[in-house]
């Protein structure tokens, strides 16, 4: 590990000024991903600015029924939060499906959103990777790509975003609050992450020095049901092969509203707009579910090792919709 400076931020403005003014400076929250990267030589920041003492560590109810989650709220605390468990079960479930108890105790909301892919080649400085070293080539494209993307990938990068939490946030229409030297801005979580294109090294739309301060969730609909389903190789502590976050409302046997996000399939949490469109107003039947899944997967492209993700997604999305639309007592 390359030696680095460390300072603890006492207020957001000075933290933002410090990092914005130093291209080698980075924020550190829980450090569960960044510290690994520093040990492995994937990133070598000259300075770390610790933001965990900033006053962003609470979950607050907003007027109108929404919720604001501070950026430094730990994943464990967020998953245990009464209001989240009560009103956004999909988020609590997604958080608990991620990582391990020890990691969730450290990982923060903002840090979770900014965690980087677990692509084996990205995490190994002895192999080429366009994301780590632009222009060196993508080793996964024709290598071991069982965990890699089937949607929205490019010839430059086929990595997936590893977050479970972000998939739930995408289905919840969350908004990310960001502060920079130019002031505040609000970014829909579905627009925070980028597809790889020809700049896979850029994973989000954030500028250097911008700091995530909070995530806001809109008020949930009283009649909606939500769930998070993660398919993985181990029963715990494994990244998603495929995951589905869904918020669904059924009215008189038809789906009145559906918000669906998919994990494990793309460089970003994948909002399944084509599936949502296919579901809107359709009867809650197996055929509808399947058609919705097929619509979303129409553009899916498999690599050498991950063709199974397409039928696995189709089946899992159908199973989730079946579960969420099942009549009580039926």
């Amino acid at each position: 590990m390359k030696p680095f400076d460390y300072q603890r931020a006492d207020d957001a403005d000075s933290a933002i000024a410090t990092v914005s003014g130093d291209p080698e400076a980075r924020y550190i929250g829980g450090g569960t991903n960044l510290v690994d990267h520093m040990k492995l030589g994937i990133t070598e920041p000259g300075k770390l600015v610790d933001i965990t003492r900033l006053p962003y560590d609470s979950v607050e109810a907003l007027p109108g029924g929404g919720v604001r989650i501070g950026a430094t709220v730990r994943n464990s605390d967020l998953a245990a939060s009464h209001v989240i468990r009560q009103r956004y079960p999909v988020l609590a479930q997604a958080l608990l499906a991620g990582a391990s108890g020890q990691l969730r105790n450290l990982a923060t909301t903002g840090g979770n959103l900014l965690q980087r892919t677990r692509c084996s080649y990205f995490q190994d400085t002895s192999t080429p990777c366009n994301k780590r070293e632009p222009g060196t080539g993508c080793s996964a494209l024709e290598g071991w790509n069982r965990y890699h993307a089937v949607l929205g990938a490019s010839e430059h990068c086929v990595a997936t975003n590893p977050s479970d939490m972000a998939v739930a946030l995408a289905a919840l229409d969350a908004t990310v609050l960001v502060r920079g030297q130019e002031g505040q801005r609000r970014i829909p979580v579905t627009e925070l992450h980028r597809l790889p294109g020809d700049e896979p090294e850029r994973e989000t739309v954030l500028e250097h020095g911008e700091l995530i301060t909070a995530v806001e969730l809109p008020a949930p609909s009283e009649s909606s049901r939500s769930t998070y389903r993660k398919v993985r190789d181990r029963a715990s502590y494994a990244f998603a092969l495929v995951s589905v976050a869904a918020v669904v409302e059924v009215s008189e046997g038809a789906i009145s509203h559906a918000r669906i996000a998919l994990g494990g399939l793309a460089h970003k949490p994948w909002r399944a707009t084509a599936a949502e469109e296919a579901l809107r107003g359709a009867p809650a039947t197996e055929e509808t579910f399947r058609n919705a899944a097929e619509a979303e997967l129409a553009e899916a492209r498999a690599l050498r090792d991950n063709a199974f993700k397409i039928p696995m997604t189709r089946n899992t999305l159908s199973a989730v919709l079946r579960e969420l639309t099942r009549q009580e007592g039926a």
Partner: protein
Amino acid sequence: MTDVSNSGKLGEPLERLDGPAKVTGTARYAFEQPVDDPLYLHPLQADIARGRVVRIDTSPAEALSGVHTVLTHENAESLSSRVDVELAVLQSPEIGYRGQVIGAVVADTQEIAAHAAGLVEVTYERHPHDTVFRSDDEIVYTPDGSNPMIGEDLDRGDVDEALAAAEYAVDATYTTPAEYNNPMEPHATIAVWESAELTLYDSNQGSYTVRDMIAPTLGMDPQRVHVFAPHVGGGFGSKGVPHAHVMLAALAARKLEGRPVKCALSRRQMFSLVGYRPPTRQRVRLGADSAGRLTATEHSALEQTARVKEYAEQSASAARNMYVSANRRITNELAVLDVPVPTWMRAPGEAGGMYALETAMDEMALTCGVDPVEFRVRNEPERAPESGLPFSSRNLVSCLRQGAEMFGWNDRDPEPGVRRENGWLSGTGVAAATFPSFSIPGSKATIGYEPGGYYRVEIGAVDLGTGSRTALSQIAAEALEVPVEAVRLHLGSTEQPRASIAGGSSGTASWGSTIVQAAREFRAEHGAEPAEGAETTAEAAANPAAGEYAMNAYGAQFAEVAVNADSGEIRVPRMLGVFAAGRIVNARTARSQFLGGMTMGLSMALHEHGVLDGRFGHVVNHDLAGYHVAGNADVGSVEVSWLDEHDPHVNPMGIKGIGEIGIVGVAAAIGNAARHATGIRVRELPLTPEKFLI
């Protein structure tokens, strides 16, 4: 009332004597041994799979404050022996596999050493490499023999004719991937040079093995090499022989005499430096008559080996003696590649080989229309098929019968794919287990009677975390006819008398026999009331029954599996293992051994897979996030049971090794259960969800 846990009688569940020290963190492992003013070593590893180092510029690393030396092939001392290429480090610029040691940085801290290692600039001459395991003629050869001293291939009767005439036939090919031992404690060593003597605090499976291999490589009198392994956090075979890092630490310490040198490998480094279970491809052909009796057995195994050093896994060996079959052909071939050196991993040979054989047995039982338990019972041999020797004891049938009863097997509907609940398909499977009962001669033990009225028992054995310290104390107590509290056992170093390696599940049998012999001689010399200071050292006599009996432990593995009908995810809610492994020395630690083996078998069945990328020549999922080992959530109910087996021939205690048999057969039982659940027969480990996706 007698507190059973404090009674040391043989068979009783005495608590681990070192348990309190371990759970309170006061048991010191190799890396934690206190030494004065240590330095830290970080190995440099090749980034190419074959070729040579043309230039290695260490100056940027050496310029870093806190760096003491950078060892390379250009400045390392010339070693006395280069017989073992893993130990003959830094003797040439040649590279035979990716990850091979090409140097080492020694610095004041681990962090400085690791940072400096990244500053060393290496220029390579790259040669074409071949690292992809396959059965091409150009890389396949037949070894002279295989681990652990199994001779040449076997060909009895006429297999082809018997197969042609068989009423029922199975011909299937099974594959198992590279699997990595991954003991909880990574490999670690501290090397200290003082007055031309080398002391190694080392995590290993045999201090004498380390001494015997390190001393000649350094050109030293073995008496001048002292090895200490007081506590070891598992090895599973990967600590059976010393690997390159031990030599690096020794060389660095000699160069920097006066400063101890510490080296702890990272998980990633372990994936190329300490061995692994080689991938296999195994074809099994079985023929049976109309009564469901095997008439032909062919097991042809191909395993991976390294070009730099041969390791011949014996995957087909269990099929030599497992079941009746008048016609039998057993072959073993190796595919030689530019890969790291494979080695022993818990039940080498049996773990992979019995996966293939016991899956084929399930396929044949179905083909014959016979219940899988009954099918194995029908094919039980009366004598060892290969040698014709009687078995010292063989209770496989009793294990199967008792297990079937306990597991509820007898009500089983053989129809696949019909049990479905909440979207999960369930099924059950069975497989047999076996492992040879080895004893290694040559160990010695010293027993002395000490002031205070206790018996000091010394043997240079090792406790890998299995409970050897406790079990051997019980054996000593019984042999001396004293309470276990009157025994103080010392093991774990070359300061005690010579002892054999903890390998092949031979430890307790070999060391226990030695202690029993020493106790007998002690009593013969000093009587039942010895004087203080009385002492006897003895070596176990060779077993007179060796060569007259076939000696093996047996077991039956049962598994219940659930497969998600939508996602293909596979879970194992229930396992049962019933074993016939002679007399059980300690019911508590024995249960843990079986349970641990079965859990590792579950992990092998569902998860473990070292993925090699042939373009680079290394395992790309080389950490514990990428290389999956079963977690707690993967393990359901695991029940362990054993028969009360009396074997008068194996050794004076009547015990058989139990360290490895627990893993054997588990993957087959789970695969067979998955087939029963889904109707899908998978012949390729691990059993990942996509293989059950419909």
